[in-house]
């Protein structure tokens, strides 16, 4: 393999032999892509609150399956452009074992770039591309009772987690607290009813009238929280707030598992540039494009956004730090990775543009 990957650029000027032969194969099979696993849409259903569920059949044995709670990156081709988005798998592992199929559910955001397009264009028979299942937001193997807290489409990983566990002991002692705007917006009603029937406590909170998670919501459940394990899934702000409340309520920090839907919110930039005591602009040099841009802590932007706002078009994908397509070589300077919370070295290395903000003056190979 090592030899092949070295000889490909030598003999074909392509990154790999797969990349060289891909356009030739596409003359006959237009949907073929080298080094990608395609999947066919076998069923589409829609639910309340603009939520759509796609049933997907991966077209290759190379797609190895998943653990409940994991997500996949879905790549679609919209008007000639490839877009990546991450979605939790909402179906149970048993469905994949029995039929080789998985389901993803997503909300078609009215102003979204991709989800409304997916809802409109991905019919039965359409092809999409799947990454392997990723993420470690999975059930722990303890038998403790569990508290699941979800908001909006953050319910999807829990559907996958709970489906195959309805006969376990902890299922009947566990609680699902679900935040959704109004009664009309509740999706997956049949599944929720089945969970309830099998003993899960399902409590739905309507945020339009009752607001987001507060002490009172937890108090009303009157659960001995210190014996619970918590799983939270939703937007970034909701997760931070929920974590704080749960810790106050007595759950230990290591018993709280969470998954961000969407990008983690940018941290307070003042903290990040603390090491750079002055509040001056940080200079970012896009060396191959001969552009010098200023980055201000008062307007925190990722380096990808900074590059784009200065008219560059770096290759990018998921924009949440998963796909590594926007990886770029940094010649010098330090960056802070908002996903890992780590400062980089000051030397030459690859960084993810979408997850990095500058700490001091940077030179990027872009």
């Amino acid at each position: 393999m090592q030899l092949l990957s070295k000889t490909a650029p030598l003999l074909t000027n392509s990154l790999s032999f797969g990349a060289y032969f891909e356009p030739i194969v596409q003359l006959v099979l237009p949907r073929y892509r080298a080094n990608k696993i395609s999947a066919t849409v076998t069923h589409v259903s829609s639910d309340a609150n603009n939520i759509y569920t796609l049933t997907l059949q991966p077209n290759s044995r190379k797609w190895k399956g998943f653990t409940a709670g994991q997500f996949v990156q879905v790549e679609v081709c919209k008007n000639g452009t490839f877009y990546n988005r991450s979605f939790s798998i909402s179906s149970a592992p048993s469905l994949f074992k029995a039929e080789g199929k998985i389901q993803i559910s997503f909300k078609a955001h009215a102003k979204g770039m991709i989800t409304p397009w997916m809802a409109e264009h991905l019919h039965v028979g359409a092809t999409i591309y799947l990454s392997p299942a990723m993420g470690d937001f999975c059930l722990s193997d303890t038998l403790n009772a569990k508290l699941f807290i979800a908001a909006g489409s953050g319910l999807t990983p829990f559907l996958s987690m709970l489906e195959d566990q309805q006969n376990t002991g902890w299922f009947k002692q566990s609680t699902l607290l679900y935040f959704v705007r109004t009664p009309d917006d509740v999706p997956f009603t049949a599944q929720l009813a089945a969970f309830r029937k099998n003993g899960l406590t399902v409590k739905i909170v309507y945020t339009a009238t009752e607001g987001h998670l507060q002490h009172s919501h937890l108090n009303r459940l009157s659960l001995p929280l210190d014996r619970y394990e918590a799983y939270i899934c939703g937007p970034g702000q909701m997760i931070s707030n929920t974590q704080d409340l749960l810790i106050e309520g007595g759950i230990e920090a290591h018993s709280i598992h969470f998954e961000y839907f969407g990008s983690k919110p940018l941290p307070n930039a003042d903290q990040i540039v603390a090491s750079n005591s002055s509040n001056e602009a940080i200079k970012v040099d896009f060396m191959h494009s001969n552009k010098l841009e200023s980055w201000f802590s008062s307007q925190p932007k990722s380096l990808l956004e900074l590059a784009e706002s200065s008219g560059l078009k770096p290759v990018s994908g998921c924009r949440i730090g998963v796909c590594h397509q926007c990886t770029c070589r940094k010649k010098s300077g330090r960056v802070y990775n908002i996903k890992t919370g780590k400062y980089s070295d000051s030397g030459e290395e690859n960084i993810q543009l979408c997850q990095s903000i500058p700490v001091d003056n940077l030179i990027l190979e872009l």
Partner: protein
Amino acid sequence: MNKASKTTLEQFGKELDALRAETISRVGETDARYIRRLIGIQRSSEIAGRIVMVLGFINPALWILGVLLLALAKILDNMEIGHNVMHGQYDWMNDPNINSRNFEWDIVGDGNSWKRYHNHEHHTYTNVIGKDRDFGYGLLRLSDDYKWRPRNRWQFITYVYLSVLFEWGVAYHELAAERIFMGKPRKHSSLPISRKELRNAFFSKAGRQLFKDYVFFPLLCWPVALQVLLGNLAANVIRNLWTSSIIFCGHFTDGIHTFKEEDIKDETRGQWYYRQILGSSNIKGGKLFHILSGHLSCQIEHHLFPDVPAPRYREMMPKVQEICRKYDIPYNTGKFGSQFFSVWKRIFKYSFPTENDKLQGVNA
């Protein structure tokens, strides 16, 4: 620079901006399918060429066919695919292989080096004497702007050499400017990599190409190694002659304008467009001709809109022409034969001292 009024040019620039926006709004699926298909055809042609060439021992005509197929593949790869992809015309596809960052072409010149000087230097300072080294490539005297020197007497022969070895010109262009192998290093260099990296990239890419065409494939077909080696050489030379001829017609035809550094001071968008048009010339031809020339036959449109997918230049051409007519701006186009002939005439003409030199050379 023939000064057209600034306000007129502003209006003119706006019309071109609008044409660009209108075209970009239609770019999508069709363009993606086109470039994929073309790359598929180009690679099929390369593989077929390499195989058929080997069969030349059965019938020499097969050798010739193989050479032509391989030359075709190299021409498509360099012109319609490589040149345009590396201009970033297809970056919007977000394809891991078809983008200006990863694409590398089948030519001895390193793509990254070419991108630096071509996309920046040549496209920004088109035909500005002293800034755009593509004007004569530092080898040929093509206008009065340069003083006549005795060596210019033989420049037609230099031109023939350059055409046969064109890919080496592309490879060496940036190294010549930075005076990597000889001469004093440039005083004000904006080279973003070290001189050593530039030299290494040159040797690495040239070495890979030489190994592939003159060592690996000949040895792979051992009993007919010489036949394959010569076939690859012939294909490379055919490609060199074709690309050189097309490219010379883009900026060195009759009626092309050159500019001085003071002309481009505080240049507005409209003036920039105006200079690109005066400094470029088109070649008329059918669809196939345009594809084989990488749409450099639409050099004017390419210089106005370097990152618009090239096949779109064909539909932009009549509209650009109409806008030029409206503002009374010359639009230089002609058949391949006449454009090419005017390039030769220019090379000959400036082989000898011209009016300016007789007036004791005003230009340095």
